[in-house]
């Protein structure tokens, strides 16, 4: 009861402060609001992105170019956040059980036809659908330059395809495709790929994540295409980590950290 009173007070105060501020906002949808067009006397960041990002990076999707290049440092840490969350969940939940027992259980539930006959339909459907999903995921990763999507979304979809397998059959079936050891490695490798692009730029004498400096490696005409290529590489790195961790989080949550059986 006390918490309800407290909640109401907190909500009332916060809400009234926020609502009080709303009237001062630039109107919704105003293209000339400071957020959209900057304040007079200083250059607007967002206008710069809209106008210059294609020139700088040759990537039509402005969001992708900002995400992976201009604010690539943020995105790297976003990936690190995912990685950290995965590690935190393993650290909290993972129960290191008896390995033989695990293996025995795995054998018991080896086949999806074993026991539960309802799973036949679901399982077969999933077997057909999953490759399509994975193909689409790869498309999303690769086509992030031109359409919505990118490493993160693609990675989630790819991870979701493993989750679907786990849901339709059982967790072991999915874990056979992406084992615990491998998803930790995959996650680490993903960030490693990301950071490697940055470090390479440093080695070539520029700042961290300055993809333009990678021009000699990609043998492109100008720094723009080098940036474009590097972004793809970086997105792939993100996709690796996200795939691995999304699946890993599910696997741990669904099996209470025992990594057997699942839901």
């Amino acid at each position, binding site marked *: 009861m006390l918490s309800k009173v407290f909640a109401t007070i907190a909500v009332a105060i916060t809400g009234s*402060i*926020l609502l*009080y*501020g709303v*009237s*001062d*906002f630039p109107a919704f949808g105003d293209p000339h*609001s*400071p*957020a*959209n*067009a*900057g*304040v*007079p*006397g*200083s*250059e*607007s*960041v*967002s206008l*710069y*992105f809209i106008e210059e990002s294609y020139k700088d990076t040759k990537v039509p999707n402005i969001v992708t170019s900002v995400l992976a*290049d*201009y*604010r*690539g*440092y*943020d995105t790297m*840490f*976003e990936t*690190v*956040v995912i*990685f*950290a*969350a995965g*590690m*935190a*969940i*393993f*650290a*909290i939940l*993972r129960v*290191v059980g008896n390995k033989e027992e695990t293996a025995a259980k795995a054998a018991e539930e080896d086949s999806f036809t074993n026991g539960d006959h309802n799973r036949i339909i679901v399982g077969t459907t999933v077997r057909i659908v999953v490759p399509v999903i994975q193909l689409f995921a790869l498309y999303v990763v690769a086509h992030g330059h031109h359409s919505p999507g990118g490493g993160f979304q693609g990675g989630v979809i790819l991870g979701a395809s493993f989750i679907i397998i786990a849901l339709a059959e059982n967790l072991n079936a999915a874990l056979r495709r992406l084992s615990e*050891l491998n998803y930790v*490695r995959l996650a*680490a*490798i993903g*960030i*490693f790929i990301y*950071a490697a692009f*940055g470090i390479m730029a*440093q080695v070539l004498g*520029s*700042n*961290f*994540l*300055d*993809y*333009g400096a990678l021009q000699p490696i990609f043998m492109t005409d100008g720094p723009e295409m080098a940036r474009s290529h590097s972004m793809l590489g970086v997105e792939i790195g993100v996709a690796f980590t996200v795939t691995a961790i999304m699946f890993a989080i599910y696997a741990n949550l669904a099996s209470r950290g025992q990594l057997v059986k699942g839901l």
Partner: protein
Amino acid sequence: MVDQIPAVLVLAPLFGALLIGLIGHRDHRVCFPIALASLSVTFFGAIAAAQHVFTNGPMDYFVGGWEKPLGIGIHLRIDALNALLLIAIATVAVLVTFFSIRRVGEKNTEKTHYFYILFLLLCLGLFGITIAADAFNLFVLIEVSSLTSYGLIAMGSSRSGTYAAFNYVLMGTVGASFYLLGVGYLYLTTGSLNMQDIHTILGSNPEIAQSKAVTIAFIFILVGIWIKMAFFPLYGWLPNAYSYSPSSTACFLAPLMTKISVYVMIRVMISVFGLEWIFVSLGWSHLVVWLAVIAILAGSVLALAQREIKKMLCYLIVAEVGYMVGGAWLADEGLWGMTGALYHILADAAMTLCLFLAAGIFVKRFRAREISDLEGMFRKAPWVMAAFVIGALAMIGVPPTCGFFSKFYLIRGGLDAGHWEYVGALLISSLINAVLFFRIFEIAFFGNKPAEGHDHSHDPHETEELPVASNEAPPVWSGNLPLFATAVIIILLGIYNGPVVALIRTFLEELPIVASSL
């Protein structure tokens, strides 16, 4: 090479973490060397950066080379304000790494590498926060450090620890979200995320600076950071979360997390909004100082009521946060309060580390969790206790420890600003701390009194390693080394407070507010 240091500071722990992720599961013994190596790189990097900053001025680093116009890329900045803090973080990190040897995952070594990964990522987050000059980047790194600390706190938790960790997650996320909201309001009104840029825009457009949205942005950023630093009314999550977490985790989080949040607050105050705006046009200084006064008193009194050592220390942190927030908000003409707060960040990191390390050793070697368990500790572990005494004296504020000098500067600021209540609170809390710690000393000293007439002085301190010691127990040096190092640091930092404060002043004196009177 030197100009790449800002990136190296965060990359070294990152690569350490990744490396452990790749090979750590095979043999948990590789974790410690990797962690130590990567943190050493950061440590020397921090020193080199500080040296560079104090000779050549601030270092600006634009990730991806996106320098102009300001704000399109991500801007990292090392100046006199954070150079010292970087060294402090690196030092604490290295010391705690030693402390963590064989302390984590004693039950099953399978989780050891997760600990080190999270630990290194947490270091990365803290370094990143310190050098970030982009308001949103700061948020991302706050989240990196928060998520890792959730994991670290929850991973070894006891029964009630899990619940404390859950509360910590909720509070931490709300805090970070409030910060994000505040940044959103700033972006809405200024159209920029770069701190420097926002500062210029607010400075040159008074009508924006006076708008409600900017004030609300400030409120939310402030409240968000206050939640993160456990400032007075919002401190509820801290004591449980820290005291139930494993020693190595507590030893790292307690000295740094709150202090980093204080730094973020000061950074936001100085580099984003500007002190003039905060103190002159907003003029909430009195309100916040009063809150700080309550925080100091409440923290001290609550600490007095605790029976567990770690919990008591946690409440002391609440009081210490009050010192720093109050000091930063004193708004005295010479900014001595701010100086004191910044110096106290370093001092408090050292003394909290010392006390928590000692508390960790007590728990591990003597199973002493409560204050009453400390009976006779002076005899069982004279050296550990000696270091504990030094830490405690610093907490009380006895010269020549750093605790005295930080209070000295804080009080000077309080007197200059005419905030008598703050000065009074500082003195009262010193007295309470004195009572608190001397109660402990008394128990530790009087505990098991040897029989009269028998000279026990011949006892070597072999009793220091009690029967707890087994193969898996952490080696004695791994606890003692960082502990003594910290004790020495406390003294040195106190004796050489002049140079340190001079460095802080070089930064503060350039601020316009010092020249103009408030």
